[in-house]
Every structure is written in C-alpha cells, then in structure tokens.
C-alpha cells in the first residue's frame, strides 16, 4: 500500500512554527505549536509527509471539543504568593468528586457519549448536555437545530442506543432590547433569541421528544457570544449499556448521505459576517432523517444486531470510526459511503460533517437482518469497511490511500501543554453605590425583569407533552402559566408499561453574576440550585446525578483560566458535599469576540449544572402554586446577608456584597427531609428561593395558585446581625425553599426534619390567604409589602411578548 498522497505541496515537515500556524489558519485547524511539533516528530519518525486528511483527522481528534485539552493539561496556578501545579484539572475535580461519592447506581461515567445511571431494576437513563455556541452565533436557527440534532445523536449513540425521552434547553443571550452598537456581521440579540428558540423547537418537535426543562439568562455580555446549551435524556435497558467492538466487525454507516457540509474551505463566497466565519461552520439539519435513524436503530438494538454504535458529530466519519476503532484498528473504503453529490474526494467524504449519520459495529452474520430493519424505516445503510486488529486507522478511496495512522498516536499522542493561571479574590466584599428604592418598587421591577419574567412565549412553542409522560409540566398553576422548578417525566411510552409510575426529573442551576465575584461559590450555588429545584417537585436529592457544562472565554488569559480552575474546584467540593456524582460534562472555550470598537468582549465565566434524579412515584410529585387559603408556610434554610451578585443589586445598580456561600452539609439534610415529607403527602407546594429571594418566590407561588400570603420577616431563620427588611426580602442565600404545608400535617412535617430541623433551619413564616395579596410584615412589625398578585402577574407576563412582539 502506498502512503497517502501528501495533498498539494503541504510540506509540513519542513515548515517553521510560524508557517504551520499560517497553514492552520488558512485551513481552520486549531493546532497549537506543541501539537504541530508532535505531528512533525511522529511523521519524521516514519519518514513521510502527512496527508491533508491525516492532519485534519488529527486536528479533529485533538480538538478542544473532543479531548478537553484545557481541562486535562497541566496548569500552574498562582494565588497571591502561592503557586501550585494541577496536573489534570478534570481528573482532580470532576472525576475525583465522582470517585469519592462512589454511587453504585452510576453505570457509565465519562467513557461513553453520555453518562448513564440506573433507573429502577431494568432500565437506565442516559443524560448528555452540550453547547453549540459558535454556530448559533453565526446562524441562530441552523446552529441551534444542529446542536439539538447532535446531542440527540449522542444519546442515540450511548450504550447500544438510548431512546430520547426529554430535551432540555438553556440559553444565555444579550438583552432583546439592546440598543447599542454591534460589530459588522453580528446578529442582534433578539434575532439570536428568535432563531435559536425556533431551531430548538423545530428539531425537538419533529423528533417527537418533549422539550420540558430549561431557562434563559439575559446579559448584554453575551450579545456577541450567545450560549446555547442543549441536553437530551434517553432511556435504555440496563442490558444495553455495555458496548464493544471486535476485529472483523463491519463498519456500517447509517442515516443521511454525505455531502460537503462542514468542510473547511468548501466552495463558498466569503461571508460578510466577521472576517473568517466560514459557512461550513453551520449546517442545516433535517430532522426527519434523524427520526428514521432513531426508529431503525432502536429496532435493530432490540434484535441484538450490532455490538457498538456512535454518532458522527464533529469530524464526521473520522471521529466516529476513530473512536470506535481506537482500541483495535479499522480499515475504511470511502467509495462505499452514500453521497449527496457525486464529485466528493476521499478526504471530503472522510471529514464531512453532514448531519444525521451514525456508525455501527456489526458482526457480519447480522448484516442482512440489519439492512432489512433499516430499509423498512426508509433509512440507508452502507458497509464502509471493517474493524481490524492492526491498531491502525487505514482509510482508502477507490484504492488510493487517504489516511494511514497509528491509533495510539491518534488518541494518545496529544502533547500536554502547561498553561499559566492566576486567581485573586475580590478586594472587598463591601457593597457600594446604587440608588435606594423601596421594597414595593423593587419587587415590581424584579418580577418584570428579563431574568425573572415569564418564559411562556418560549415554552408554548415546544411540544412539552409528546410521549404523554410530562406529569409535572414547565408551566404550572391554576391557569397553566406559573414558573415550575423542574419537570417530572413518567416515561411510559418508552417503557411500554403504564402500571409503573417511576419517573425522573431534570433541573438546572446557572448564575453568572455570582461567578463575577467568585466562581468557586458560583459552582456551589449552581449545584445547590439544581438540587433544590429537583427537590421541590418531589425528586430524590440523594439520588441526583450531575452534568457540568463550562462556557468560558480564552484560557490563554491566566485570569480566565484561574477563574475556571476555581469553578472546577467548586464543582469538586459541591459533588462531594452534596454527595452527587458528575456523570458527564463538556466545555466550550474561547467564547469572546471583538466588539464594534475592536475591543475583546469575553463572556462572563458561565457554568451550567444539569441534574437528574428519580421520582419514586410520579403520582406523589407536587407543583409550586399555592393550593389553598389558611395553609402554613415554612421556609427551610437560613437567610444571610448575601446580596453579592443578586438581582437586588442589579436593580439598585449596587456593586460588591457577599456572594451567596452554600453549605452543602446543611443543605442536603434539608432537601432530604423535605423529600421525605413530600413522599408522605404532607406538602402542598414548594418553590425554591433564587433570583429576587423570598419576595419573588412568594409572589410566584401566589399568582400561580391565585392565593395570597402573609409573611413575617421576623420569623425567618437568619443571621441575627441583619436589621434590614430589604436584605431579608431579597437576599439570595442558597438552599432555601418556601413550603406550603397541609394544616393537619404540620407536626408530622416538622418530625421529618427531626434533629436536622435546627441545621436545616426550618421555620414557620406565615400562611396563605384567600385574599390574593402578598403581604409582608417587617422586623419592626410594620408592613413592608402589600401587593396585589394580579398586578405582579401582569408585569411578570408582559415583558417578553412586549420586547419580542
């Protein structure tokens, strides 16, 4: 076999680092100097030039996206005068936390396309969340669509294939009313919002997957780099979790055809959207093809026709076959791949990112049966090679060599580059500046604020009830329009069993404003938020599993990297503290762009925590709307003077203050006791305190249930040094939940907290009322708030439709 044709006059071996960087820029390859050097060394040792396809394959496999280089390479962190080296941030934080909590129900973590946890005795749940930020910035609709398509495929390619039962969507956008300047080519945030929502909607709805959990955070620092987090939960029999590839298995490509999508330097007139944004960076999805794949794959899985599966994501066949054959080797004949256009060259077929394709490892004796199953669903299949035991990745096209790489070099040859990081805590936590505003005005502004207001405009565009299992819905309350904390899914369509009411819940935690003060506490707060949201609907917080998604600016900036380290260490301590394992995660770095003045605008360091937990009996779950008048209201959790990064400070224009500092040990006791009380049917409603603190929480429960409340701030468990009513009303201390208890069950409710009642700080703070007014009495006995819920709700509902019209 002759060596692959060195494409054109690449002459990689002779180039200087500067020339290699230029080559990388021209071909949109993000290889750094050390990586180019490693490539040169390797090919010099085998005495030949690499082909273009080989360089592209290596670049893909070694990309941030696939290998999380920043998270797994050494970091030298300087904090004040002290310096320490972190050998592998990922191992030392995320993985270490999961290993420490040692949950036997984690079936697959960090090795497959998604994390897998047990769900009952027979089933398991696969959960994956990832981002599709850069494509969504370039083309909001197409980027979001293919983002959803990609994460669905990850779950389809997890184990032997999981059936998607829930989609999640969390976005960070610039404000839709942004009236400032934008650089050439950047889309206005309202356009990004509309396009992304439409893309997530169209793909998810067409795939028949309910989109029922999510959120939006608005901040103008995201206006050039929106964040689009998409997640999918899939159901899989425990017997189908393990996969393997044996030499001799056929490599079978299924799904859509291969075209020029995603190829660097595809024929395309240069875009006027930013200097070098190639159209190839955006693909258009075709959900119906993916639906065909889904239907066929699960049928083939249940017949036991293949041994392994993975999806074609970034890098197309190159990453899919490269991954599946990593441990053994693969021979690929590209002329066998079904094509969209007949004139694709070998390397184009190999690297195309055409959507809706997956790769299977099929024992030859099952091929005919597999082809029959797929063709019955109108889905194409093609044998494009076989797995071998050579340890090499050998790819040809019509006999011509395209790639001939050592698998070990491809997957393990990535050089680790040490990076510098610095972290310094903010100088002071004293709050300063801003204008004083009275509590009623503050509440009105908060309830209408973009980060609190109703998201009904978005949610009603998603079919959140397909598969008939959305027992607790995103919109709750009398008029089906209140803000639910989490959804509960009863997956009977997937299990086929309507007698089994085991369900699961998914919730999120995100707050970049805390991260501006201290990313460590932001991480704790995010995990806390996700877990308390789960608890509020009746999920079991002691059985929660976590996903981490980091979106950050450039790690080449030591301060950014230092903040990232701090957030990762917060995750580690949160995982251990809440005894919740991380089962999967992703990171998206370099989220920054030049603004209209040419100045770099980095996004604030953003961490999304997604949490999934089982709901032992979905029929016992609860919603957040007040259920009746005269019911006792309890607050679980202690209120401290923690207004740093709060909505209150945003409204006043105040800076500084103490960032909320979660105490996992106390918090988890409170959550577990509340869960037990909910299971026993003692709780009518529960809602967590987050942005806007107690005031916003009580208002939301009130106008969703159309009952008022009278609260007494003096009854709150709190730091005794607090003398300000506003602090008590609007503090964002974590781990707090407002609970409406059945009057006849008060003592039973308190018994559930038992000895933990003191640690969890459970206090009766008032009761619901028939009159739909939110009345709050302050420390001095005077009325601080007396607001008609109807008016608050109107303000809450008006914001998004008014700005999007």
């Amino acid at each position: 076999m002759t060596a692959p044709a060195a494409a054109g006059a690449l002459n990689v071996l002779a180039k200087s680092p500067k020339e290699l960087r230029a080559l990388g820029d021209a071909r949109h390859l993000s290889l750094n100097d050390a990586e180019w050097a490693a490539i040169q060394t390797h090919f010099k040792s085998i005495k030949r030039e690499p082909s273009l396809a080989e360089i592209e394959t290596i670049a893909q496999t070694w990309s941030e996206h696939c290998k999380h280089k920043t998270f797994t390479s050494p970091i030298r962190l300087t904090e004040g005068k002290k310096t320490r080296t972190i050998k592998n941030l990922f191992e030392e934080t995320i993985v270490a936390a999961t290993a420490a909590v040692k949950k036997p129900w984690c079936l697959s973590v960090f090795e497959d396309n998604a994390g897998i946890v047990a769900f009952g005795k027979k089933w398991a749940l696969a959960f994956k969340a990832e981002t599709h930020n850069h494509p969504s910035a370039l083309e909001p609709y197409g980027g979001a669509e293919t983002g959803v398509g990609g994460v669905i495929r990850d779950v389809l390619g997890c184990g032997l294939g999981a059936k998607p039962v829930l989609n999640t969507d969390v976005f960070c956008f610039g404000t839709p009313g942004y009236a400032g300047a934008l650089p050439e080519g950047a889309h206005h945030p309202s356009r990004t919002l509309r396009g992304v929502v439409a893309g997530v909607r169209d793909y998810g709805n067409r795939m028949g997957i309910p989109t029922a959990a999510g959120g939006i955070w608005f901040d103008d620092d995201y206006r050039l780099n929106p964040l689009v987090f998409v997640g999918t939960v899939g159901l899989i029999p425990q017997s189908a979790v393990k996969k393997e590839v044996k030499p001799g298995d056929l490599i079978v490509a299924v799904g859509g055809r291969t075209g020029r999508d995603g190829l660097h330097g595809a024929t395309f007139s240069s875009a006027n959207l930013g200097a070098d944004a190639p159209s190839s960076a955006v693909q258009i999805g075709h959900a119906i093809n993916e639906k065909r794949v889904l239907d066929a794959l699960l049928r083939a899985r249940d017949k036991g026709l293949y041994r392994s599966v993975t999806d074609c994501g970034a890098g197309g066949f190159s990453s899919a076959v490269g991954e599946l054959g990593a441990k053994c080797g693969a021979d690929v004949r590209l002329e066998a791949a079904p094509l969209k256009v007949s004139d694709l060259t070998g390397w184009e077929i190999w690297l195309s990112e055409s959507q809706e394709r997956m790769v299977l490892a099929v024992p030859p004796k099952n091929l005919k049966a597999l082809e029959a199953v797929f063709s019955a669903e109108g889905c194409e299949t093609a044998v494009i090679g076989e797995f071998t035991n050579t340890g090499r990745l050998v790819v040809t096209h019509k006999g011509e060599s395209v790639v001939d790489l050592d698998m070990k070099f491809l997957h393990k040859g990535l050089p680790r580059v040490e990076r510098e990081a610095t972290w310094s805590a903010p100088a002071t936590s004293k709050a300063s500046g801003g204008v004083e505003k009275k509590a009623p005005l503050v509440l009105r502004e908060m309830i209408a604020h973009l980060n609190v207001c109703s998201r009904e405009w978005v949610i009603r565009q998603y079919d959140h009830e397909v598969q008939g299992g959305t027992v607790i819905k995103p919109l709750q309350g009398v008029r089906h329009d209140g803000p639910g904390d989490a959804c509960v899914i009863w997956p009977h369509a997937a299990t086929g069993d309507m007698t089994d009411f085991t369900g699961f819940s998914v919730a999120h935690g995100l707050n970049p404003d805390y991260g501006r003060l201290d990313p460590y506490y932001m991480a704790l707060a995010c995990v806390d938020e996700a877990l308390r949201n789960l608890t509020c609907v009746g999920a079991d917080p002691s059985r929660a599993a976590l996903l981490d998604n980091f979106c950050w600016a450039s790690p080449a900036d030591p301060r950014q990297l230092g903040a990232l380290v701090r957030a990762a260490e917060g995750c580690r301590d949160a995982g251990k503290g809440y005894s919740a394992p991380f089962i999967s995660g992703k990171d998206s770095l370099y989220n920054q762009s030049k603004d209209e003045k040419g100045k770099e605008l980095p996004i604030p360091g953003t961490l999304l925590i997604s949490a999934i937990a089982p709901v032992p009996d979905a029929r016992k779950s609860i919603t957040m709307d007040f259920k009746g008048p005269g019911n006792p209201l309890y607050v679980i959790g202690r209120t401290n003077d923690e207004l740093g990064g709060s909505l209150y400070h945003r409204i006043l224009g105040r800076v500084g203050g103490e960032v909320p500092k979660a105490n996992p040990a106390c918090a988890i006791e409170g959550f577990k006791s509340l869960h037990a009380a909910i299971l026993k049917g003692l709780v009518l409603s529960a809602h967590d305190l987050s942005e806007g603190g107690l005031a916003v929480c009580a208002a939301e429960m009130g106008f969703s249930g159309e009952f008022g409340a009278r609260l007494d701030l003096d009854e709150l468990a709190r730091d005794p040094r607090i003398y300000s009513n506003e602090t008590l009303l609007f503090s964002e201390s974590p781990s707090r939940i407002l609970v409406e208890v059945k009057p006849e069950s008060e003592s039973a409710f308190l018994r559930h907290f038992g000895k933990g009642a003191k640690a969890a700080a459970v206090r009766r703070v008032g009761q619901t009322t028939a009159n739909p007014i939110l009345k709050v009495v302050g420390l001095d006995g005077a009325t601080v708030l007396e607001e008609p819920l109807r008016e608050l709700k109107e303000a809450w509902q008006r914001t998004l439709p008014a700005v999007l019209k």
Partner: protein
Amino acid sequence: MSVRAMPIATHLIEVRLRPEFADAEGAAALALLLAQSQPSLRDARVSRVYRINGPITANQVQQVAKDLLCDPVTQEHRVVAPTSPPLNGMNFWRVEVWLKPSVTDPVGETVRDAIADMGLPRPDSVRCALVYRLSGRANKASLEKAVARTLANPLIHDAVVSEAHP
C-alpha cells in the same frame, strides 16, 4: 454509462396561499421588517418557489405541483417564467430567499424523494425558496439591509430583492 432519455431542464413552480386566506407567516415577516425601520410597508404574503432540476417534463412538473406541492383548498400555483423585474415606482417588492448552493436544503430533499415516490423521474436536485411579496413603499438598499437582519442570513442565504408585479 446510462443514456438519458429526457433532456435535463429546470422548472420553477411558485406555490402561494390563495388571497382570501390570512397569511400568518406573512404577518410575522411584516412585523419583523417594520421593526427594522421599514415603516411604509403595508402587507407581506409568503410563497414558496421550488426549483426542480432534472430529466422531468413540464407536464410531470405540473402533476407534482398539483398532487404534492399545492393544497387544492388553500393554495394556488403557477410556473415562474424568468423575466426581468418590472419597475413599479418602488411600491411592490419581491424578496426571494434561497439557501446557498453549498448548504443542505431539507425541504428540497424531501420534495425530491417524494417526486420519486410518485413514480416520476427522480430530479437531480430540488431547491426551495421562501418568497416574500411586499406591498408598500421602500428603498431597495435599505430594504436589502432590513432583509439581511431579519429574513435572510447572508452566511447561508442568497437573498434577491427586486421590484415586482403587484
């Protein structure tokens, strides 16, 4: 090598909502354009143009239009003849938004398969454009800018703005 029995031709079919039906897509497009400082636009109607390329005759294309592309109750269709846009004093506009040739066209792919399923010769390609018929006064350059901010993304679309028949 196969011998083609039919000459390869390109057919353009436009499918639009009958005038008596309200056009929600058009209303949404109009709202977006009005927000982009196009205050004199009064109405927008949306139609779709299918460019069918292949060994398929004009009669067969009519059959495709009737049986597949056009709903007999709500829609009407016509063949689009390539003509130069008539000038009308900037009062009526036609905005055609096509996906760029290098970008996958999912609707086109579905139509292509559906035509073959009808027993007709499978076209070489089918592309589908959204066409916005706008009435109201506008300036071409500023309308093109508004379109690039709302209805089309220059990264993946080719948008053609021309004066048109009312």
